[in-house]
């Protein structure tokens, strides 16, 4: 079973890494990250700060775009092109197929993050004359966020069209990044709204947990209880999403 999983993951990786949209997004993101140098030059001596905040935000936005555009199409494309029959006619369980797809895409996203992250870190190192470990940890957290969103995108992609699932995933990304504001608003609200908003806060993915971008401006490295909690949250939430996706794919009739 592990071999089958590896074969599917490897093929998915090859398929997605050849996607032209990936290249254009990576290319454009590198351009945007490099452009932060321009913004930094007019920042009254705050260049390092501006490169960090602009560069990391650009990196996250492009990572989310890659995740949404590619992740939501993955399963749907297989069903639409009927290539899924070719795979499932072999002794391959649907769950393994689904998990393999996720792992393959996760690998592609990791490669894309590595490329964009390397450019960003090199730019930062060039400016500060030192390697920034906090920035690397922030990128690591972003990668986890992208993987979590991939699982969300694939879950939606398993039962709706790519456009619909891209919109749903995008909305969840927005909600997930508004979680701090949602909690603040809930604390100031009437009981009904308060519990509704708290429900939203706890049920929807809390992507602000993965946000180290503000801390690294002050060169703060994440603390170990924080890292443990975030990794646990990521693992539990992603596993739950993957299991739900597998269950849907298992029940689907093509």
């Amino acid at each position: 079973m592990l071999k089958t999983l590896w074969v599917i993951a490897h093929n998915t990786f090859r398929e997605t890494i050849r996607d032209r949209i990936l290249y254009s997004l990576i290319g454009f993101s590198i351009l945007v990250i490099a452009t932060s140098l321009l913004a930094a030059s007019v920042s009254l001596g705050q260049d390092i700060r501006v490169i960090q905040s602009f560069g990391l935000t650009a990196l996250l936005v492009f990572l989310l775009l890659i995740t949404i555009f590619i992740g939501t199409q993955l399963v749907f494309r297989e069903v639409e092109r009927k290539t899924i029959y070719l795979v499932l006619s072999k002794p391959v369980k649907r769950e393994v197929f689904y998990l393999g797809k996720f792992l393959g895409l996760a690998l592609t996203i990791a490669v894309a993050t590595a490329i964009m992250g390397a450019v960003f870190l090199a730019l930062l190192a060039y400016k500060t004359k030192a390697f920034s470990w906090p920035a690397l940890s922030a990128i690591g957290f972003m990668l986890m966020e992208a993987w979590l969103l991939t699982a969300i995108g694939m879950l939606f992609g398993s039962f709706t069209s790519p456009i619909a699932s891209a919109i749903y995933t995008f909305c969840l990304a927005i909600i997930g990044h508004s979680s701090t504001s949602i909690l603040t608003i809930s604390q100031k609200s009437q009981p009904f709204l308060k519990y509704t908003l708290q429900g939203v806060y706890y049920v929807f993915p809390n992507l602000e947990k993965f946000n180290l971008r503000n801390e690294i401006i002050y060169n703060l490295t994440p603390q170990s209880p924080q890292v443990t909690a975030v990794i646990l949250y990521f693992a539990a939430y992603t596993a739950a999403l993957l299991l739900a996706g597998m269950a849907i794919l298992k029940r689907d009739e093509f």
Partner: protein
Amino acid sequence: MSSSYPLAWKNISVFVVVGLFALGYVAQIRFDAWQFYSPSRINTTYNVYIEPQPLSSQTAKLASLGATEFMADYYWLTLIQYYGGGTPNGKYRKLAELFNTVTDLSPKFATAYQNGLLILPGEGFVDQAIALGKKGQQNLPDSWEMPYYTGLVYHIYKKDYVSAAKEFQKAADLPGAPPITKLFVAIYYNQADQRQIAYGIFKTIYDTTDDTYIKDRAAKYVGHLEMLFSLQDAVTTFHQKFGRNPKSLNELVDKKIISEIPVSPLGRNFVLDPKSGQVNDPVKS
């Protein structure tokens, strides 16, 4: 023949595409020339200047989707462009609001507070500068610079030496404060020449900051005060020589006490009070 026909078409289509691009290029040049040489048909002299309209801090935080430092930096760049670009209104009406938004979004952005405390009072936002300083003291309780710079505003712009002394006392008690800060507190209580203290305060800022802009600004203040002192010395020399105060600063030049009236790097004018012989540097209101 049949095979050369499509080839010929291919050649023609390439020429057509190239030709169309060339035509586009010519049209572009003609348009630019027309725009450049023809008289302006729309009056663009009014209403082209738009002040920055920062969102309220709360809305900006909400809109940032967690990227609050990014949003703070965006407003920081906006602020710099705004302040550097000049204003036709005669006053940077949004300046205090922008400093407030930046520091609300990034409460530990020390340089923003320091710049705000140096820039805002000179632009007529004295109370807002003090409020910014107090906010900085709350958000950065270990920074001696926050009470120090606040004390400076009290001293220079409010002439409230008791509050200034209190702020310098707070600064002196914090780690990293230059030892001279304690001296300022002592001088305040001895009621020495306030301008000499101001000189010492700015000189300390100049010596301690790494921020190029703040250093530059402090250097300007130091230069300005040095000019003020040299003019005051010239008035004393004049008095010793002629037994009276000069009628104006120009008389110092006429009587060859000084070669010219220096131009303040802060853009302020030096004014002589002929009665007391005191040289002043009135602040913009």
